[in-house]
């Protein structure tokens, strides 16, 4: 599952612990790294994204903030242009609307507007995803919204190994990086258990390059392109499909900006069939972009029109049967893949 060779000991870690380990190692290495957010201190992050950091680095470097996202994310921008490397946590990505101006009009544009004279080396970490009845304002993924707006890298790990390597890369990057973690991949004790949320992770620091997709399962009949928790669902679907003799490739994009278009085209060229699985709203988002990328690069290799299985264009309902009806899952992914292969 991992491509990089680090030569170091590995341990079983949850995604959240792997992510925190990367932050801690970078904070050790580089005194300009610090972290701000709501409940990142004693609480350790609502989704354990900062657990243990306060104890280790103290309140000067692990700073609880008021509920002032424009204020503290904007402050991160200001600190970044003065040579710090802040990490700011937006507790749920759903809250982006209270601070989007700082994110996309400032963080993402200052480097360009300054003609390259200023860098904004910062990371925004944010939780995404639903499936546990948190309603319309706490369950969204929204990565498509950010990926549409130029100037920030968009990183979306699906497992502990990538979570650590991509976090290290994000902190070391001289550009603003949005780091989305799905609550369902963190390995939290209070979420529906997910066996893929714990895995072997090297102890030594390492980097997973931002902008490189990863084949999480290779296959020859159909390419399933997705990110984050839906990688797990796709892998489950692939297992079911294998029993039917359908050999599915699962391509984990890992980042949307930069988008590894080559990997998409390469895989589709080999399989001739594309299914995009997307937990974000269907229209005007990731699914359309990936399909268009395949059309632009592999039109002549397509054996059937690409398909998509995305979150429908409706706000996220609270009630469990409603929400589950909307979310792609292993069964629905396998069903569409079968249709595609039999088309």
């Amino acid at each position, binding site marked *: 599952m991992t491509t990089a060779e680090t030569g170091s000991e590995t341990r079983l870690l949850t995604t959240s612990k792997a992510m925190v380990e990367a932050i801690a190692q970078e904070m050790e290495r580089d005194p300009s790294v610090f972290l701000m957010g*709501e*409940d990142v*201190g*004693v*609480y350790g992050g*609502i989704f354990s994204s900062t657990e243990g950091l306060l104890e280790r680095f103290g309140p000067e470097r692990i700073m*609880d*903030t*008021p*509920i*002032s*996202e*424009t*204020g503290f994310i904007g402050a991160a921008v200001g600190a970044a242009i003065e040579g710090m490397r802040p990490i700011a946590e937006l507790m749920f990505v*759903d*809250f982006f*609307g*209270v601070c989007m101006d700082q994110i996309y009009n400032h963080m993402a544009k200052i480097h360009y507007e300054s003609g390259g004279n200023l860098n904004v080396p910062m990371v925004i970490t944010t939780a995404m995803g639903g*499936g*546990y*009845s*948190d*309603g*319309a*304002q*706490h369950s969204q993924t929204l990565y498509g919204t950010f990926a549409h707006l130029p100037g920030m890298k968009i990183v979306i790990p699906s497992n502990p190994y990538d979570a650590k390597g991509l976090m290290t890369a994000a902190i070391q990057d001289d550009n603003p990086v949005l780091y989305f973690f799905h609550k369902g991949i963190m390995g939290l*004790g*209070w*979420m*529906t*258990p997910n066996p893929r949320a714990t895995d072997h992770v090297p102890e030594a620091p390492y980097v997973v390059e931002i902008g490189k997709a990863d084949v999480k399962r290779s296959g020859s009949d159909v390419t399933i392109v997705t990110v984050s928790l839906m990688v797990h669902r796709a892998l489950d679907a692939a297992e079911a499909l294998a029993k039917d003799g359908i050999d599915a490739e699962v391509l984990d994009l890992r980042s949307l900006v930069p988008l590894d278009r080559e990997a998409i085209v390469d895989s589709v060229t080999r399989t001739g069939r594309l299914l995009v699985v997307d937990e974000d709203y269907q229209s005007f988002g990731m699914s359309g972009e990936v399909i268009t990328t395949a059309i632009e690069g592999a039109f002549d290799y397509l054996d059937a029109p690409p398909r998509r299985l995305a979150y*429908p*264009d*409706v*706000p996220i*309902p*609270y*009630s*469990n*049967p*409603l*929400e*589950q*009806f*909307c979310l792609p899952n292993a069964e629905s992914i396998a069903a569409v893949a079968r249709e595609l292969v039999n088309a």
Partner: protein
Amino acid sequence: MIDEDTQRELLRQMIRARVFEEAMAEVYMEGKTPAFDIAAGPVPGEMHLAAGQEPVAAGVCANLRPGDAVTATHRPHHIALAHGMDMKKMTAEIFGKETGLGHGKGGHMHLFDPETHFGCSGIVAEGMPTAVGQALAFKKQGKGNVAVAFFGEGAANQGAFHESLNLAALWKLPVIFVCEDNAWAISVPKDAATAIGNNSDRAAAYGIPGALVSDNDVTEVYETAAVALERARAGEGPSLIEVKTDRLLGHFQGDAQLYRTQEQIEELEQRDAIRRYEQALVESEVLDSAEALEIWNRARAEVEEAIEFARSSPYPAPESALTGVFA
């Protein structure tokens, strides 16, 4: 001096809310033991209970009239109940049932009730502009109604607080801003988030009255709100009220509360405002202990009935998720 009927009513509303929250705390754990899974059980998702904060809701809402609007937060039950929301429909919504206020689409943080003009939002402080707009509508419609925005002390550092107060003050709108200062925003204490001690002092930044109720006392809340509401109904504009209140439970159910000590929590329990008020009413002979017990018992029966209604109601049809985006 508050008349005796009103005193009993204030107690009754606080007790209803408390009994409801305690029942929710229990129901919430159903299906989540031994291995806690937030998605499991009859009531999934986040659950923010307001035990301890009942005086704020009861004291303010007892002053409201039909047609007055209320917006609340992620912690809305006590307010919704005090404002007259149907407990059955509300409970059914929390259970995600077809018979719920939003047919299961809203949930615990999104209780909308056109009948009582009640709404809430899970985004901190962002329910406040809604109330400003409701007040604006009332003024345009010449209705004489008032809108009330409840929010936490944590919300008072969000931009929406500032914009809402300025707009309401500027346009002299009939709206009351009620800050429930329970001293905590999840794990962050007020003094680690707010540059000054009392948010009521921020009223001066908008040229409006700011009142402080300093000990979670329903009488004082009631009287303070009465003044503010009178002012609003008279067309003299908004007021800001801050109530120092207590969050007896965790931020949400399942919160281990590692950020405060067991002693701190017990201290809060010891000064429980409902018990204090009940005692005071018994002492001043507004009611006797039997009558008090009767209030508790009735509340328990009402809550049980509501939960039973919710339990026995059907879930909405899964495919109904796809409809209702547009009117």
